[in-house]
């Protein structure tokens, strides 16, 4: 599965808007994840996960920054996220099902914040893009 030119254009142009709210988007995405899918909290026993916690904010920023890296290297996501892919495979070992849950929560966050940009076509492009990112992050699992 690879992104078409149109899909890449949609992602890159939306990212310009999104990146201005990057940090709060990250935090909101994680809040949505932990509330809707409480089982995902099992990966963060060492975190204070209360809304507004510094750790939540820091981690949200990290996640969105990584998505940003993928956007900036949208023609070579595998190379851009190679280290992160290894981290997830050998250290974090997050079960692959969770990438879909996080992706969904990021989509919902974007939809809520950028409703007029989040057309059906943009929705499809983002869903596909995050699916590609998820594949890259799990490709070294076994």
């Amino acid at each position: 599965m690879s992104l078409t030119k149109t899909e890449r254009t949609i992602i890159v142009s939306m990212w310009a808007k999104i990146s201005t709210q990057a940090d709060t988007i990250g935090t909101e995405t994680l809040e949505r994840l932990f509330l809707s899918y409480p089982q995902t909290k099992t990966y963060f026993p060492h975190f204070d996960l209360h809304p507004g916690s510094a750790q939540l904010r820091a981690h949200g920023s990290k996640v969105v920054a990584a998505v940003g890296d993928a956007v900036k290297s949208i023609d070579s996501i595998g190379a851009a996220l190679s280290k992160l892919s290894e981290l997830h495979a050998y250290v974090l070992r997050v079960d692959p099902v969770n990438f879909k849950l996080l992706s969904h929560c990021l989509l919902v966050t974007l939809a809520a914040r950028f409703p007029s940009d989040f057309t059906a076509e943009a929705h499809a492009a983002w869903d596909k893009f995050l699916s590609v990112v998820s594949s890259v992050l799990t490709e070294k699992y076994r």
Partner: protein
Amino acid sequence: MSNFTAEDKAAITGLWAKVNVEDAGGETLGRLLVVYPWTQRFFDSFGSLSSPSAIMGNPKVKAHGVKVLTSLGEAIKNLDDLKGTFGQLSELHCDKLHVDPENFRLLGNVLVTVLAVLHGKEFTPEVQASWQKMVAGVASALGSRYH
């Protein structure tokens, strides 16, 4: 499986009261067909589904989307007995329509996304969590009589 708290019910019914089923129905089914094109397999009789604009503008898609969300609206009045409410529809989707229940999960998540588009800030993480329970309950109920 789905135990709705008083807060869940308030979040679900409260938001639903503001939903225009005419608009949301077409958006929801349309987006399912655009974002997950393989779901078009159930709709050969719907005419042109050749592009996102064709799909989103297709009157049959809109009409069917309204049908689906109207049914969901009925379920919202019976949150404590989703299995009972959807029993016959479950049999229909299995025996006549031959729909893989995975599609119910996909549609549920598309609906959640559409609600976010339509309600923005109001669709808080807490409200979303209640709605995820809702769509999971519906998907489970619709799959409950498969055999």
